[in-house]
């Protein structure tokens, strides 16, 4: 066994706080029907997350600033937003990883209707999710114990089980921005999770749904979704596997 010692950690000097400016795109339809940009300056530590900055603003400067958040560490999917032009989770984006010379821009995710400030209407997104039948469908006789599944069979869809439905991928997709009928990568990812589950027997139904006009064929492999996914899911790979399953059938798709 390795004899670990404390020296493995470089003892960093205590970090200094500094000021950053956030430029936030705001909107409250009860006040006015236009969006506007507002700047706030907060004092932060390099290891603070954008969520901490937003909290500081909301708590100490402007209580009307509105955004969603819950877990604070990237597993609930509440706080997908556009930070410096890219979709990310505010709670997983550290100040030190951004350029802070200029103001950090924060906007709502794109392609879903803005309800207030950084909050968007999630319903179309959830509707697409529900359409692909995101649940196990079986046609065998229910066993008394668990269904047997080998580790390899499970590995085929492991990646897509990580999805937290944050919508970062779907709202980064240029096709989704222009075609709101498009199912979007998140729905396809969740379809993939079941299509490639050896215990499921309704792959055909899901493929049929995705084979329709606004289904998986609309994807133009722009990879924004893959870049945006905070869970590191290889979204485009999953979409391509689904497309191949639609072309060749399931066995040869992986």
């Amino acid at each position: 066994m390795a004899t670990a010692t404390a020296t493995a950690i470089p003892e960093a000097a205590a970090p200094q706080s500094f000021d950053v400016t956030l430029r936030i795109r705001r909107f409250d339809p009860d006040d006015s029907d236009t969006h506007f940009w507002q700047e706030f300056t907060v004092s932060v530590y390099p290891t603070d997350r954008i969520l901490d900055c937003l909290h500081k603003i909301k708590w100490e400067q402007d209580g009307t600033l509105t955004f969603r958040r819950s877990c604070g560490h990237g597993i609930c999917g509440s706080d997908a937003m556009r930070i410096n032009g890219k979709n990310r989770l505010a709670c997983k984006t550290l100040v030190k990883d951004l350029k802070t010379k200029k103001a950090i821009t924060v906007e709502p995710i794109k392609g879903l209707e803005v309800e207030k400030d950084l909050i968007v209407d999630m319903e179309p997104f959830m509707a697409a999710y529900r359409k692909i039948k995101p649940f196990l469908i079986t046609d065998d006789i229910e066993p008394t114990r668990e269904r047997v599944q080998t580790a390899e069979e499970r590995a085929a869809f492991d990646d897509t089980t990580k999805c937290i439905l944050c919508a970062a991928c779907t709202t980064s997709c240029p096709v989704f921005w222009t075609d709101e009928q498009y199912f979007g990568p998140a729905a396809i990812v969740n379809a993939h999770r079941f299509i490639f589950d050896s215990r499921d027997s309704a792959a055909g139904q899901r493929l049929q749904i995705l084979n329709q006009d606004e289904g998986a064929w609309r994807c133009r492999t722009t990879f924004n979704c893959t870049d945006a996914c905070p869970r590191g899911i290889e979204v485009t790979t999953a979409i391509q596997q689904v497309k191949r399953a639609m072309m060749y059938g399931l066995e040869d798709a992986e």
Partner: protein
Amino acid sequence: MAIHKYDVVIVGAGGAGMRAALESGQRARTAVLTKLYPTRSHTGAAQGGMCAALANVEDDNWEWHTFDTIKGGDYLVDQDAAEVMCKEAIDAVLDLEKMGLPFNRTPQGRIDQRRFGGHTRNHGEAAVRRSCYAADRTGHMILQTLYQNCIKQGIEFYDEWYVLDVLLDEGRAVGVVAYELATGEIHTFHAKSIVFATGGFGKVFKTTSNAHTLTGDGMAIAYRAGLPLEDMEFYQFHPTGLAGLGVLLTEGARGEGGILRNAGGERFMERYAPTIKDLAPRDMVARAMVQEVREGRGAGPDKDYVYLDLTHLPAEQVESKLPDITEFSRTYLGVDPITELVPVFPTAHYAMGGVPTDVETRVLANNADVVPGLYAAGEVACVSVHGANRLGTNSLLDINVFGRRAGIAAAEYANEVDHAPLPESPEQRTRDMLENLLTGDGSEQVWQIRKEMQETMDMNAQVYRTETTLKQALTDVEQLKERFRNVSVQDKGSRYNTDLLETVELGFLLDLAEVLVVSALARKESRGGHAREDYQVRDDVNFMRHTMAFAETDADGRDFIRLDYKPVSVTRYEPMERKY
């Protein structure tokens, strides 16, 4: 005023709420009210696993599991409840698997199991592989799977609706009052039975693994409605939170072979729990860590944390079995667990106490009576299967076993009775509360009060407590409650007014902090998660009983907390000293 009529209303869509909905939805007209989108509930944060004596990888049985649960809970566990949970655990896991949960698999294709703190073979002989898991995102998979099945069943959800009050009529629960976040409208839900599944209240502490939204709403609502809260002094501190942040690193990390070391590199748990070392129950490990730091063996510039060492494990094992926590550590601390030691320190994690229920999940109004029509399950409830200290993995189990039971019980009750009439102007209390907050122009700020509450709780009511620290906490919390009367809400709007709701939540937290501290002051012994330095031993003669705290008003109209006690149900296991 909008009134919605349902047979069963479930409050909360975490694991417990959705497991209940799946049962109740089949039997009665059910609505689920949740302040978060269901998949954003904090059940999704659970990592390590869910224990059940499946015996898939080694010999095991549910009685050993029961014993471990009781011993782990320092004999404050209601043993009949623990038996129910551990017996039903096996089906609970198999049910989830059949619903589609992608558990990790053994080479034979069965559900894989791994070790977890306090779970042992044959009454403490050695650690046993009992925890069923899906990498280190078991809770995520449970939450997703349950939500998926709710979609399959067409369960009706009211997403982002905050329940703010429960309506009782002559001791029977008849409905709830809810606030619709999107519009600011207040609605009454008229129901025959109501299930509370609103989760925990970790946000009373500063350093916590809990979500910003875990503000104990359900407990506070019940408490304000005159119902008791049980065993609130027992709050679990999880040993391995990322130092300074509280983000959790699962005990599964130690289950996979991770080791805790102090600044000198010593595996200090060998001194505290010679048999199962790093896999001792959480309260013991947390205390050991605090002890190491107090005695000057802490690491870091301020010597205020210890290390979790995974560097001796094969990189593939860490990456494949613990991918998420590896990433947390990399993202938030910039530390790579594969090559570096991870700074960790105990983090406020889990409420053992809560709304008292019996094993049928019926909420108790006192030691003898239940509240007809009112049920509770999950972290909000205290059955009590966790006693003074919950074993890792037993909460995911709890939410599934008792969530299921709550759904069935609530629906069956609803099918037997008619709607009882609603009280007059059911929304008045809620409207008054919100109106007060919105029109108040006090100078106190929500965040300031919350911060001070969390600081005093971290300082004075954490892993170790004494009369002095607890009294300090009590004074602080009482002052903060006073200041809270002068709080101001900046957002006066009606659309997505999260400012207003954060204020309401702070009100809930302050109530719970007070109950926690008062209950802790009265318990002059050390047991499980409640460690009194001024009373270091367990006192079974005086304190082998549950605390029941009631909100009451004295003759002069002053509010106070009345404490009562409830006996522990003992079936088979006489209390012994807890050694590992």
